[in-house]
């Protein structure tokens, strides 16, 4: 597999001053996927933004790594509910007009 389109976990951790075990724990929790290529650990570019959100929650709010999956799940539910609200508002407008 070509690694030039993947993001090195090592570089990511170095940039964000993280211990690599942080990213490994997230993978164990099923929050991210790590690709191993020739003993190097990588993530897909589109996984960087969601991963950075987890990093922010961890670093800004001191949320423990083990609890991040719960918080992440709740945030995803909020986003989903917000989308549903918009759709319901549109449907309501349909019936009220």
């Amino acid at each position, binding site marked *: 597999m070509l690694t030039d389109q993947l*993001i090195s976990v090592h570089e990511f951790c170095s940039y*964000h001053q993280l211990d690599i075990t942080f990213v490994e724990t997230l993978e164990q929790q099923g929050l991210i996927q790590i690709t191993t290529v020739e003993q190097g650990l990588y993530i897909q570019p589109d996984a960087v*933004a969601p991963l*950075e959100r987890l990093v922010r929650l961890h670093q800004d709010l001191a949320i423990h790594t083990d609890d991040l999956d719960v918080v992440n799940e709740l945030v995803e539910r909020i986003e989903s509910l917000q989308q549903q609200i918009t759709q319901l508002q549109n449907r309501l407008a349909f019936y009220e007009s």
Partner: protein
Amino acid sequence: MDFIDYYKVLGILKGASEEDIKKAYRKLARKLHPDLNPNDAEANKKFQQLNEAHAVLSDPEKRTKYDQYGKDWEHAEQARHGGARHGGARQQQRQRQAYSPGDGGEHDFSEGFGGTNFSDFLSSMFGQEGGPRAGRQEAKFRGQDFEAELRLNLRDAYTTRKQNLTVGGKTIGITIKAGVENGQKIKLSGYGAAGVNGGPTGDLYITFVIAEDSRYKRKGNDLYVKETIDLFTALLGGEKIVETLDSKVKVTVADGTQNGAKIRLKGKGFPVYKQDGAFGDLYVEWQVLIPTNLTEEQKDLFRKASTL
């Protein structure tokens, strides 16, 4: 720019200890953090103020100046040093701009919180502005995000179209995919205000407002339309040409069709957003027109029919 009482923002008294400040900050940050409040502009604004307050009050030197000079704390200090730097209000404004929401529940972070447009890390890789969290003490600030509304009619939203927008003197060409929904928001990275001191540029958020159509009503990807048929077609059956948004369809009307009856024209509704070739359905509601001004001969025929 109004003065912001940092103590009030943190909900603490002026004599609060460092520990109190830390606790108050932590408590409010958990409540207002943009990642926990996706698409909530008010929470985002309060979080910016919270960070601003925390940045000043958690620094003993800045706090002393703030306590001494109040709203002009930074300005007063500048005056003592020849007034070469920006004023306090400007500083407040810059700090408020340092944190802004993204779309789809993702948030963008700039100086102080480890993020820029789509990714702090990717931005650094591709040579854009912004930097690691280690550099959060540098006075770089992300430019302000712009919000805009784009009004379309239903027919505009039916097809993919390119549209030019002029924002802040810049003309931006955007492609609006068919099937966009009322209230849907998109982000155009880097089209907000310019950053301060080399900070990254803000983003432009466009919310689509789709006006109602006089003929068609939309529910999700389905369209609803009312069509009239005359009494004889309703009684005896027949054909009717129904206009869809992009064509005309010949529809068979069954005999004995009731007023208000609906039929579904599969795949003749609204395009599904970002799914080429996928369409919702078109529901046609028949409205039977009762004839008026009947001649005596016609009335006689109806009377006869009613007794058969």
